[in-house]
């Protein structure tokens, strides 16, 4: 099996808030393999963005701190690097694009100046060469007349164009891994599709890996090879995209799918998951999902003991006490449709 590009091992992140410590990310382990797209899905506040920011050590410290675990990039633990070394990783080996393209570009610099600054930091080129690289990057993301556009200010570009610019900036230094934190959430649907298509194309051309953070299951279905479902600071289910969509094991994942409207469904109300994501300062005991879980229904096991993440089927992990009791569908399925994840959770 190929070596993972990035491996998170038991990552735990804490924030101190007026004397009280909360842990928005607990014991998270993930692996991303070369050329793979790993999606992390979950509701707002489940810790997916904090996980992404922790990889680049971008969470504000203080109040945040990384309590434990390892972030291995090609076997090198990013948590032990100096700030100087970390700057080379950021934008060089791991690039990141953000949710809000409208505000992620600095309004007082031309887009060229912004790309060129990053290019010059990570590649030893002079300014005119850096402009060439910037123009090529803009061309690659499908921006017409890149030689003119480099001299424009962000306020003259539309949201979709700005996200393309962000992607161009992120990819101008040929990163091994792109972290995309809800890259299409702020865009309208047609532009979303274009941006996702663009990411797919660029990924195929360059063989880079993508860590895709999203709460949009449609985006996951279209792009992801493997999916990790996060709930209340932990990963509750991990599988290939096909396995997860066909045979969700965790009641939370099932709930997410039931809450998504399907083409062809006639009328009726969507089934929402009752309640809301618990605040990290007041996580419930036992299984964190049990107050909202249709399976728990007063089971003391769910209320008192946190279920471990265990491998239900090859490459399919979930943490629930009642997986076997509620397995409505067969776990095996025809091999023809399988696009297996290239790996499994780090063990």
């Amino acid at each position: 099996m190929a070596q993972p590009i990035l491996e998170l091992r038991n990552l735990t992140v804490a924030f101190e808030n007026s004397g009280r410590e909360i842990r928005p990310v607990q014991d998270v382990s993930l692996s991303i393999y070369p050329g793979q797209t790993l999606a992390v899905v979950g509701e707002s506040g489940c810790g997916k963005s904090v996980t992404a920011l922790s990889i680049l050590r971008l969470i504000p410290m203080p109040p945040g701190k990384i309590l434990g675990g390892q972030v291995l990039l090609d076997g090198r633990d990013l948590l032990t690097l100096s700030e100087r070394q970390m700057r080379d990783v950021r934008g060089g080996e791991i690039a990141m694009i953000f949710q809000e393209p409208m505000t992620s570009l600095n309004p007082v610099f031309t887009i060229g100046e912004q790309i060129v600054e990053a290019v010059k930091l990570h590649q030893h080129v002079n300014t005119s060469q850096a402009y060439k690289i910037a123009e090529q990057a803009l061309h690659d993301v499908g921006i017409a007349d890149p030689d003119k556009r480099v001299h424009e200010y962000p306020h003259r570009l539309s949201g979709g164009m700005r996200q393309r610019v962000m992607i161009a900036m992120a990819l101008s230094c040929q990163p091994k891994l792109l972290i995309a934190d809800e890259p299409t959430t702020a865009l309208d649907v047609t532009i979303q599709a274009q941006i996702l298509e663009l990411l797919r194309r660029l990924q195929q051309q360059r063989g880079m890996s993508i860590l895709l953070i999203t709460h949009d299951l449609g985006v996951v279905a279209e792009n992801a090879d493997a999916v990790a479902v996060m709930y209340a600071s932990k990963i509750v289910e991990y599988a290939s995209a096909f396995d997860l969509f066909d045979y969700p094991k965790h009641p939370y994942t099932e709930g997410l799918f039931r809450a998504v409207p399907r083409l062809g469904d006639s009328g009726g109300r969507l089934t929402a998951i009752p309640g809301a994501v618990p605040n990290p300062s007041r996580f419930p005991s036992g299984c964190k999902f049990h107050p909202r879980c249709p399976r728990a229904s007063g089971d003391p096991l769910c209320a008192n003991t946190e279920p471990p993440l265990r491998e239900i089927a090859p490459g399919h992990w979930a943490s629930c006490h009642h997986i076997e009791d509620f397995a409505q569908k067969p776990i095996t399925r025809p091999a023809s449709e399988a696009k297996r994840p290239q790996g499994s959770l780090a063990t």
Partner: protein
Amino acid sequence: MTETAVQTMAPSLANDVTGRTMRRWGARLGLTWIVLLVLLAVFAPFLANSRPLLLKSHGHWSSPAIENLTPADVIIQAVFWTTIILWKMPVSLRTKILIELAVLVSTTIGALVWVHPSELVIYETYRQDERAGNVEKVINAPIPFSPDDHQRDLEDAQLKPPDSAHWMGTTENSADLASNMIFATRIALSIGFISVSIAVVIGVIVGGLMGYFVGWVDLLGMRLVEIFDAVPTLLLLLCFIAFFPRNLYIMMAIIGLTGWVGYAYFVRGEFLSLRDRDFVQAARAAGIPLRSIIFRHMLLNGLTPVIVSASFGVASAILIESTLSFLGIGLVQESSWGALLEEALGVGGTFYWWIALYPGLAIFLTVFAYNLLGEALRDALDPKLR
């Protein structure tokens, strides 16, 4: 593609704001007055000088005015003409600043080495020569009196009200008021700009660090700011002046060192809101070094209120200098509007209206001009008024 073509395609924020500021009549009026003051300050030795600009005596031409320029005059001329030449040159701002600095340094060294005006100043000689008919041809400055020409050759030149010879009258020690007014523009302009620049630099660094790092840096910084804020500036200035020599540069430094508090407040506030903006995080995620994030990416976004309050700060620096000079503890060597104003009240309570009117008017108009500019800038930069 040429630079101008790009600029017409995408007007930069700076161009945009300049355009909107200049559309207001107040700003144009203020700027006109300040440009006029700059021209007066730069060409002062050619506008008001007891020495003739051109002189033909015993068959050969000479220019006593140019021969007796001080090193400061030479440096000012060099910087002024470099600025005019660079103004429309298609080079980047950084290159312009570098050329400007190079010219400044080289002329400063050159002027200090080679320019030595005669130490003994006797202004009367030129007038006496002229009267005696020793010169064939002479072209005098529009105001043929230097600011420190006490007209010892003339009887009763003391405290003359304005007439055709002395457009603004004369002072108690027989100096021409108009000449002093022109030379005083140098003090007014330089004390405003330099002291405010010092204050802005300190304020931006302290405020920027407080706003970016928050936590204990902010806590310590705010206490420092509060300490400086609690000290009455004028009182501190009086104490400083008691211990240090009366020198223009020391005065600039003192006004700058006591005036940075306001800028630190502004920059801190801006940075507190900027530090959580997405583009700052995006810059960090791209591996941009902290120095560049704070002093390039964030500062250029948070400079708006600083620019506005700096234009008001220039006005108040001029007022502080005038106040000190009026109180009689200002500069001794150079002419200054405040110092002139003080002479309006003569011995025994006599009031000389011309000495009160012209310097008072000049101070008022200059402060007013800076306020007009500041107000127009503030409106142009305020997104709600766009």
